[in-house]
């Protein structure tokens, strides 16, 4: 029995996903729940497991393509193991299902917890499946490009598109032809090399600005250029397209700065007590719990204390309704080699230092191995970022929407400070709070920061 594999809905506000990598080729055998492909969405990069066992019969959506959720991306022929495959295959986005079911909160005020009241059936029949219907046209090009590809024996799957929405334009294929044509022989290497050395805007040494205006169309209308594009291309350069994640980050940051009037407050925290406690317990902690003790759980706990005291910091803004979250879910920015992601420590207020530390280590590790589940980057109510880890004295972070605040941690270092009219050496740390002034005023923000400071400076909870 053939099973359709669909683009899963990886979160409530996600409407499309990009297939970044196929892990199986047509003809390959796959086991149920075996990773089948990798996707990238607004929120996460994730491996998608196969919904059933069988043989991958057909790939309908190629790598790099973005399709709406529920689009059939592949077909698995379960002929050999029909018994194993349950008939109506659930969408592989099992984890996302509850999230997907939560309807967008109505503008009207919601009493308390937004219970997923009218949960839509998660297994709604796949809606429009455009990709499936026009399977002969999987690569976004044009009649001209297809004709030129045929005439020159070029495999279009090897050409990166720079047109609108990643379309392969005439200029793109002309560039390939000019470069001697891409033999369809070694597609992977060509694909990999192409972005770095795209010859489209030639590295013209002359003063004449080779106008790449029509060659490299901006994919995203949201990204404006402050100067005419031709002014950016000079001297020697290479052009690298943004990764999907980079684009998502850019969009998110742009949106956040646009909708939220950011205000920044800075405070200085004496971390000596925490630093001493950590230094004293870290070996024993690691021995006992097999996980490293960092400063982060202390900050998370301190933030929890602040959020408990000032619930407007633990909120979202929907129109003119402030949604005060009862859960305290703290997103922690994790730097990746290829970008940034903010996994969420759910129910941070219900965890002790050990629990938070374990969760943090687990989330960070899986973020780096692309094993995060979609719901693990959702439903954050506040976030913390740590520019200090890279040596920053302090940072002024951009709010991660839909939060109203983000705490930025500076570097912890020993500094001379005045205590009771004498100079002492203390472990000091600047912390910054970026907050959305639509919801939070300076008075609350500073009181919140003070609460964080007070909690850390007077730390009393044992960690072992």
């Amino acid at each position, binding site marked *: 029995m053939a099973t359709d594999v669909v683009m899963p809905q990886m979160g409530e506000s996600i409407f499309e996903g990009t297939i970044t990598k196929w892990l199986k080729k047509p003809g390959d055998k796959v086991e149920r729940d075996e990773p089948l492909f990798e996707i990238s969405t607004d929120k996460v990069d994730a491996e998608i497991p196969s919904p059933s066992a069988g043989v991958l019969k057909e790939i309908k959506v190629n790598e790099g393509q973005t399709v709406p959720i529920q689009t059939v991306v592949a077909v698995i022929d379960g002929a050999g193991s029909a018994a194993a495959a349950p008939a109506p295959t659930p969408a592989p986005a099992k984890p996302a299902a509850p999230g997907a079911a939560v309807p967008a909160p109505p503008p009207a005020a919601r009493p308390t917890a937004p219970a997923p009241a009218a949960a839509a059936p998660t297994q709604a029949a796949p809606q429009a499946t455009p990709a499936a219907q026009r399977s002969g046209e999987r690569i976004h090009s*044009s*009649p*001209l490009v297809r*004709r030129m590809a045929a005439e020159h024996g070029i495999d279009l799957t090897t050409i990166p598109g720079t047109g609108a929405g990643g379309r392969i*334009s005439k200029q793109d294929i002309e560039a390939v032809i000019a470069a001697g044509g891409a033999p369809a022989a070694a597609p992977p290497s060509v694909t990999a090399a192409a972005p770095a050395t795209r010859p489209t805007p030639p590295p013209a040494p002359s003063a004449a600005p080779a*106008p790449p*205006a*029509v060659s490299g169309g901006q994919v995203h209308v949201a990204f404006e250029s402050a100067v*005419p594009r*031709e002014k950016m291309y000079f001297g020697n350069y290479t052009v690298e397209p943004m990764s999907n994640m980079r684009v998502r980050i850019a969009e998110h940051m742009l949106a956040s700065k646009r909708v939220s009037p950011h205000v920044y407050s800075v405070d200085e925290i004496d971390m000596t007590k925490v630093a001493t406690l950590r230094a004293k317990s870290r070996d024993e902690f690691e021995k006992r719990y097999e996980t490293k003790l960092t400063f982060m759980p202390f900050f998370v706990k301190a933030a929890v204390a602040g959020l408990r005291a000032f619930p407007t910091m633990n909120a979202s803004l929907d129109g003119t309704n402030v949604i005060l979250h009862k859960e305290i879910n703290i997103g922690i920015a994790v730097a990746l080699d290829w970008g940034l992601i903010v996994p969420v420590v759910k129910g941070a207020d219900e965890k002790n230092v050990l629990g938070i530390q374990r969760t943090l280590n687990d989330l960070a590790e899986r973020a780096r191995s692309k094993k995060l589940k979609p719901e693990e980057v959702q439903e954050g109510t506040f976030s913390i970022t740590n520019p200090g880890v890279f040596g920053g004295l302090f940072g002024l972070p951009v709010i991660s929407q839909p939060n109203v605040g983000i705490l930025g941690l500076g570097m912890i270092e020993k500094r001379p400070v005045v205590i009771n009219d004498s100079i002492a050496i203390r472990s000091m740390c600047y912390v910054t709070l970026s907050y959305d002034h639509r919801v939070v005023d300076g008075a609350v923000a500073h009181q919140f920061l003070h609460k964080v400071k007070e909690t850390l400076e007077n730390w009393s909870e044992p960690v072992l």
Partner: protein
Amino acid sequence: MAETNGTQITFLEAIKQAMFEEMERDPAVVLLGEDVGVYGGAFKTSEGLLERFGWERVIDTPISESAIIGAACGMSYAGLRPIAELQFIDFIVCAFNQITNFVAKGHYLWNAPAPMVMRGPSGGGVHGGPFHSANPEMYFVHTPGLKVIYPSTPYDAKGLLKAAVRDNNPVLFFEHKFLYRRIKGEVPSEDYTVPIGKAIVRREGKHLTIISYAAMMHTSLEAADALAKEGIEAEVIDLRTLLPLDEETILQSVRKTNRCLVVHEDTKTGGIAGEIAAILCEKAFGDLDGPLMRVTALDTPVPYSPPLEDYFLPNAKKVFDTAKELARY
């Protein structure tokens, strides 16, 4: 009329010269219409003709477009080569039956060709409102048996009007009134005609083709200048004749640029852009690297209110924006 040795004349003057010279050349050519005689035409396109050619050849008619066209049709059957003026082209539809059922079909049905010209001021942008701004060309482009001309320059206006008078088929000749006094150009002092059914490339380019005609041709050129500053070289084609359409010039250009934008002042639905899109799909599908795009008037009557009319009409900014989108598609 020999005083125009290479000098600049207005579009309006070009019309007048064409009629004058054709009436001088051929005694069978007559002009009839509302106020074309004593008054010299509502826009003064026939000023001086009555004095030169007399009552029998410059005929003031009652206010009845149907009668004007019907009479002209009869004259053409009788051996004359009438030029029928419609004071505002909007009211040509009053003569719709005469034109489509008789003038256009006569040659097919009764071997009765009607060598006549139907001309008049058309187009918007002059705050003329819904009854004095029309672009009704497509009613007639859809009518086999007619030729439809819509020039954009004094040179073409004169050369094409003269060619229309000499053509043995009924020809509709639209004169965009916005151009009458705003556009000047050189015309040769000697007799010349411009071939009917031939478009012309007004500007060469390689990144996309902008196809237009009449007043919008100037708008398109303006946009093309702005596009050039951004490194986008638009080729601009002036159709000049809408029926028969010069497919060859269109196809040649689009096969080079692979992208096509059509700009017309006529409303969108059923405009010539749709026909061009079909031709490109039929004959140049494998040459297209982008969708055909259109910049046209909105699908409403021409508004009275000047701000609304500005919104309704295409302009250089709209052409520029759409062309840019197409170039980057």
